[in-house]
């Protein structure tokens, strides 16, 4: 078979772009947080330098091979997720492998990373880490329901599970799914809050009670890899939501605008909110978001 070099190019540079955008978003978040707290805040490149610093740590410790591989799992999951999400609509370069997979596949590959992380954290032997994982998994069970309800509603409505078809169907502004089935969007975005893990759903990495939970034994390059994968993963998730609800993006400008708009929702919620206990957050997800999701499905059915 002949190789489509454009594809290869896309595959090579998409992670880089994702990384840059994700890191920048991270910096911006810190600035915005600072401004809301009436501070000046760090430079926008702060996260980038943090990551570089972590990579440039001279020594690192590990408790075993699983901990060594955990960040690798994480970043693998992020990059794979990214590859199976069409970044730019109808472009050869940036719809990397999105024709080979579909939504349900994405739902599952997104878990891959957290599973690997959980294994590594487990081997690190730090009880705080295990507690964090247990909280995280419980919370995941919480927000999975509304999210799946929303996704199911959309799949039934548009009779496809492939993202590219979804994007193609929302070719113009008023066909965006956010307008077509707003309840699905509500449910999904509320679940998205949980996914991003900002307050009030940051019980997983609550630094004050369980010493930042899962990553508490990770330092140096491991932490660096984790932060990298987090930035990429953030971008991937944002793009996914953009594709599903906001009709994808034709070029990078719209992409950035849409993703940033989406990104601000969890960030701004996070800044002004305290922290839920685990059972509280699970209960929360099973209350209104689920209702919205069921509404979305019912509306589609009728």
């Amino acid at each position: 078979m002949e190789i489509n070099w454009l594809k290869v190019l896309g595959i090579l540079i998409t992670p880089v772009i994702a990384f840059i955008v994700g890191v920048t978003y991270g910096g911006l978040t810190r600035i915005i947080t600072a401004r809301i707290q009436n501070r000046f805040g760090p430079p926008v490149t702060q996260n980038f330098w943090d990551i570089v610093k972590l990579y440039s740590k001279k020594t690192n410790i590990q408790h075993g091979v699983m901990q060594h591989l955990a960040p690798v799992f994480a970043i693998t999951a992020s990059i794979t997720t990214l590859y199976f999400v069409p970044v730019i609509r109808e472009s050869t370069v940036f719809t990397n492998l999105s024709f080979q997979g579909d939504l349900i596949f994405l739902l599952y590959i997104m878990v891959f990373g957290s599973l690997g992380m959980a294994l590594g954290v487990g081997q690190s032997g730090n009880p705080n880490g295990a507690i964090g994982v247990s909280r995280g998994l419980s919370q995941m069970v919480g927000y999975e329901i509304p999210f799946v309800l929303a996704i199911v509603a959309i799949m039934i409505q548009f009779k496809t599970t492939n993202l590219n078809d979804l994007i193609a169907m929302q070719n113009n502004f008023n066909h965006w799914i956010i307008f077509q089935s707003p309840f699905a969007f509500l449910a999904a975005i509320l679940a998205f809050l949980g996914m991003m893990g900002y307050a009030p759903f940051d019980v997983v990495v609550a630094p004050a009670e369980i010493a930042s939970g899962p990553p508490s034994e990770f330092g140096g390059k491991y932490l660096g890899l984790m932060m990298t994968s987090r930035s990429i993963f953030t971008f991937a998730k944002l793009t996914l939501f953009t594709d599903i609800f906001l009709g994808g993006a034709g070029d990078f400008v719209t992409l950035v605008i849409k993703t940033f708009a989406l990104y601000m929702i969890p960030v701004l919620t996070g800044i002004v909110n305290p922290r839920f206990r685990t059972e509280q957050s699970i209960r929360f997800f099973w209350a209104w978001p689920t209702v919205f999701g069921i509404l979305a499905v019912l509306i589609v059915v009728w």
Partner: protein
Amino acid sequence: MFSISGIFITTFVSGLVAFLLHHSVPKIRDWFSIVIMGVIVYAVWELPVKANLLSFKLANYNLVFGNTEYGRLFALIVAVLGFFAILYSKDFMEGKPRLGYFYMAFFFSIGGMFGIVYSQDLISLFFFWEIMTWSSFLLVIYCCKEAQKIGLKYFVFSAIGAYSIMTAMVVLYSSIGSLQFADVFAGFGKMDFWSQLLVVVLLLMGFGVKSATMPLHVWAPGAYRITPSSFTAIFSGALSKMGIFGIGLTLFKIASATGFYPWVQEILAWIGALTALFATFYAVFATDAKTLLAYSSIGQLGYIVTGLAIGTPLSIAAALFLTVMHAIFKGMLFLATGAVYYRTGTTDMTKVSGLIRKMPYTFLTALFGIITVSGVPPLAGFSGKWMLYESLIQSNHYFLVVVIFFSSTAAFLYLYRYIFSLFLGQEEKETENVKEVPWLMRIPMLLLALATLVFGVAPGLLLHPVSAAMKYLGDFGVTYQTSVLFNEWGNKVDMLTVANTIGVVFIIVTIIITIKGYRSTRYVTTKDIHTSGEVPTENENLTYAVDFYKPFERALGSVLKASVDKIYNATGRILEQSFDYLRYVYTGNGQTYAMYVVLFLTILVVFSELIFGIKL
């Protein structure tokens, strides 16, 4: 050799021979069993596919045996898993008492399963069903005194199941006049509504007991926990599949001819989904590894039942695919747990931890196992789950798919709990001189692990026999390529691409972070962790193993209180009590007995008009 009778005779006779060998020359007992099992695997593989291979008349019933594609699928599961289990048993069972008994019951249950999958009439199916039941019962009570109550429960529930099948057979026989599948499938449509309903319900009930479908599952956790792990693999991997086998036949060959078929489908699908849900919840809060796995298999069987009940080609494909996969991965996990038990002597997850560096191969097996169960790509569990979801969505079972998805997400909880508590976490002082299990035990586990990988990358290999089996169940066709799965809307997922992407990225990053010279990493023990400056002492247990999911438990609240098991136990107690009172009818007092006689006479005389219609 490659005749059905050959397979039966080999299996049962070698069961007896193993028993005798144990009492004469125990040295060659194990190898004998292993060799025989290998031969049987070959025979089952070579057995020609023909509807009527062996038929004879026994007690004025025609007994017919044949090898259909559908039966062949299950027969292969049984044979291969049996081979692995018996390979594993050689070292695992060494030095345990009553080994002859063990091997005999083992072979008998295997033979019973062969009989079930090959039988072409209900009589022989029931015959072998009962053989399977009592031989597996013998293995449940095999271990010790505490197993007896559990075994009794298992037997009683199996008896309830078997007898409901029997009743269905009676009804069928009285209205059709023959019990051969051919006649039954042909004649069932012509029966009257009520007997149709009765038969379908009874059959589903009967088979549902073996496939541990709620609310008939209560025997499963105890029985799976107490049996020796090398047989638990069969128990959960193959023996429970007999229920699935029967449910498949009932649904597509019998119930599909009736008017209430859609209702049966809906109800059964929901039963399966709820089974999956609640079983998952119980698994999350189990503290014994084997109990956890038992509940997990109940849940997985719930998926399978749902898939069968939906009845679209894709869902059936998913169900059968999951059937095979469940046999594989639950076999792996039970064998791995058995390995842990073999070395540490317990399967209590709050007692063992940090075995990864001691038993790397076992850990690898368990890892592949949980990844497969959780359905995370690229391993094979994903393909089955994917097909199941797609089929559910495309047959417009919106809320069903949510329930299924929810329970399979909750599955992550117990899977992580399983692997964390046993293999990860703090390395305990008690287990510091634990070694890896012998090779004969490793090989089956690793081969099964390899199978999950292969079928994950190329599900087509497995979908080929599955689709053949579907042809037998009805004109169901499913489109697939060696590595590509399609749903009914034409969307696809290419497992090969997925596997390649994950593999390439993973390897590259691994190389980058592990190359020599880049930022040296040093290994520190699991005691050397951040404890706010404190120095943990040697015998200080830092593992977080008890009440692992307390928050989740709080969130669920009183959902977990509901337990059908309590109801059953109460019923049993009450019945026994009443029987205990009833036996005092026999006072042991002559006068009383005499009085009974007189009473009987007088009653007959006085109520003669009632009884005989004649006034005296």
